[in-house]
């Protein structure tokens, strides 16, 4: 069986709840053995997509394939797919061993006690085999849920916000653990989450979902460095977005007018062909220099800034810089010790390389995908 034989393929997958379109004509291929993340805010359709793959939700339209087998209409218990449920859904009346052995028993696997023991060892819970789920901590329950799904050697493992119920420290630990297990057993993981950091840490490929559509799909670094929509620019990390007019565009560079100053952008990072665009640049890509200081050739320089806020956070210093047109831009400077800290009120130039900026269509909302602290909770 060649690797491509077990790819998960969604073709025009659609789910409507009455008038509401939860998932809108989704077509993606998840290569076998990859760690794929569906990332988006709550209500974006990511969980509905997952449930359609698991067979827990019936699609309004479209098809689901694993390799060449169509599984769209199969009952959940007939699919080569297993799920790690949000808040785990462990059977409270069964022991840990019986929870993990549940799938193999149903399928009549002969040596299921031995397999169960091996699986409990993989997740380091061999001493808890006779306990009940209620007697385990959140992190341990999470591992039981993982073992209970993985023991079935699924073609695709679906994870629905698997780390959502854990505290921050444990979550980091489990991210590494999950990635280790995934690499070890070479199973396709489809991971649904609203936590961009979680998705970026673990996934090979991230699909950012919003309103039932995929905004952008690609490796985490590409999504972060070269976002194609304002939603992606804001949802993954933070971005400064400045409204600019395109002056000229060539194979070498796209030149924009930013409130009277000329700036260059790498053409491969321009995602608009209209005359206006949001120029985006990540706060850590900008460096601040006292006004007028000499800079290297080819760099973009935006003058007229005035430091309006300085917060020292240890590894970096975060500045807010007020621009003449009233916008405040964010700048993160690494504390490398090479440069003196700037003071509040100081006049500064903002410097960055053309290959670090991106240009997005001006018709989009500049605030799309901005997460507030309440969303994170």
């Amino acid at each position, binding site marked *: 069986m060649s690797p491509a034989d077990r790819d998960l393929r969604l073709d025009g997958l659609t789910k409507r709840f009455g008038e509401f379109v939860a998932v809108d004509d989704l077509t993606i291929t998840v290569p076998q053995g990859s760690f794929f993340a569906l990332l988006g805010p709550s209500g974006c359709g990511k969980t509905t997509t997952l449930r359609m793959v698991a067979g827990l939700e019936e699609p309004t339209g479209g098809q689901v394939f694993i390799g060449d087998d169509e599984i769209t209409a199969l009952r959940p218990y007939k699919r080569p797919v297993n799920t790690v449920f949000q808040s785990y859904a462990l059977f409270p*009346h069964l022991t840990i061993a019986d929870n993990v052995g*549940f799938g193999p028993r149903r399928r009549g696997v002969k040596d299921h006690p031995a397999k169960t023991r091996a699986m409990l060892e993989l997740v380091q819970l061999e001493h808890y085999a006779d306990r009940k789920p209620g007697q385990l901590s959140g992190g341990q329950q999470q591992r039981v849920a993982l073992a209970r799904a993985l023991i079935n050697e699924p073609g695709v493992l679906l994870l629905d916000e698997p780390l959502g119920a854990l505290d921050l420290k444990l979550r980091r630990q489990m991210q590494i653990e999950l990635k280790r297990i995934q690499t070890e057993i070479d199973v396709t993981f489809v991971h649904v989450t609203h936590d961009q950091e979680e998705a970026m840490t673990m996934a090979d490929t991230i699909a950012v979902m919003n309103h039932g559509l995929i905004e952008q799909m690609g490796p985490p670094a590409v999504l972060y460095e070269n976002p194609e929509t304002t939603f992606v620019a804001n949802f993954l990390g933070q971005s400064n977005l400045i409204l600019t007019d395109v002056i000229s565009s060539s194979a070498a560079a796209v030149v924009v007018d930013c409130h009277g100053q000329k700036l260059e952008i790498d053409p491969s990072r321009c995602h608009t062909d209209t005359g206006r665009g949001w120029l985006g640049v990540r706060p850590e890509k900008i460096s601040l220099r006292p006004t007028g200081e000499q800079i290297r050739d080819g760099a973009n320089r935006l003058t007229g800034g005035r430091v309006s806020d300085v917060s020292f956070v240890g590894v970096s210093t975060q500045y807010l810089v007020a621009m003449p047109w009233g916008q405040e831009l964010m700048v993160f400077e690494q504390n490398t010790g090479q440069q003196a800290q700037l003071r509040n009120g100081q006049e500064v130039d903002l410097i960055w390389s053309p290959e670090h900026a991106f240009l997005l269509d001006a018709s989009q909302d500049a605030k799309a995908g901005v997460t507030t602290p309440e969303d994170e909770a």
Partner: protein
Amino acid sequence: MSTQRRRGWLLLVPGMLWLALFFLFPTVQLFFTSLYDPDGSFIAGYEMGWEFGNYVSAIADTWNLFARSFLYAGIATVLCLALGYPLAYAIAFKSGRWKNVMLVLVIAPFFTSFLLRTLSWAAILSDRGPVTGFFQTLGLLPDDGRLLATPLAVIAGLTYNFLPFMTLPLYASLEKVDFRLIEAAGDLYSSPFTGFRKVTFPLSVPGVVAGTLLTFIPASGDYINAELLGTPQQYMIGNRIQAAFLTEQNYPLAASLSVILMAIVLVMVIGYVRRAGTEELV
């Protein structure tokens, strides 16, 4: 003793007093009555004779009534479970916005008295009633066959009257079952039936235990159904106790029958609860 704990005890006092006065005292009284000299009478008064022989003669005369009571109550309990489980399941999982309406409908019979409802069953099952006629037309019952005054009528009446006591605890425990557990069972290769057998049903066992106890215990002591829907051939132990107390006024006999009934039910319940192992369940 801390104030907190003292307050806890204070809250118990009214209930304890009530139970002491209206449960504990009558029970002790009943026990003593069962040992009175049977030669006494209601008019002349009884003497305490520590007559344990009362029990022997009570059992000897009425063992068949005991057997019939437990048989009828047992069948009625099984029927209640068979009817009540799907009902409770449907209300808990499938009723959507009709849930509250359906729950009210389950309790609705309690708005009329037990006696009245059983009397109307007598009318429904009567020889010229529609149900008898229906079965006769279908040929399931001979033309001179009866429904009223048969064991069937008594068991049907018991089943009907105690169905809510079965349904409500079943509903309460089914309603608590997380539907995601059922989804998880499906995800782990259980057909809907296997998922029910391995997950839903085990999680509803506390409701089954509570429901069967609430049905079986009162049903085995019931006498209204046998009185109104049956004949002396269908009488249960409750009828005998009622007759001994109120008609014959043979207090020692009535009391010893009551104590025996209580003791047997208690032993059966303890055995049952032990086997069902409710404390093992979360």
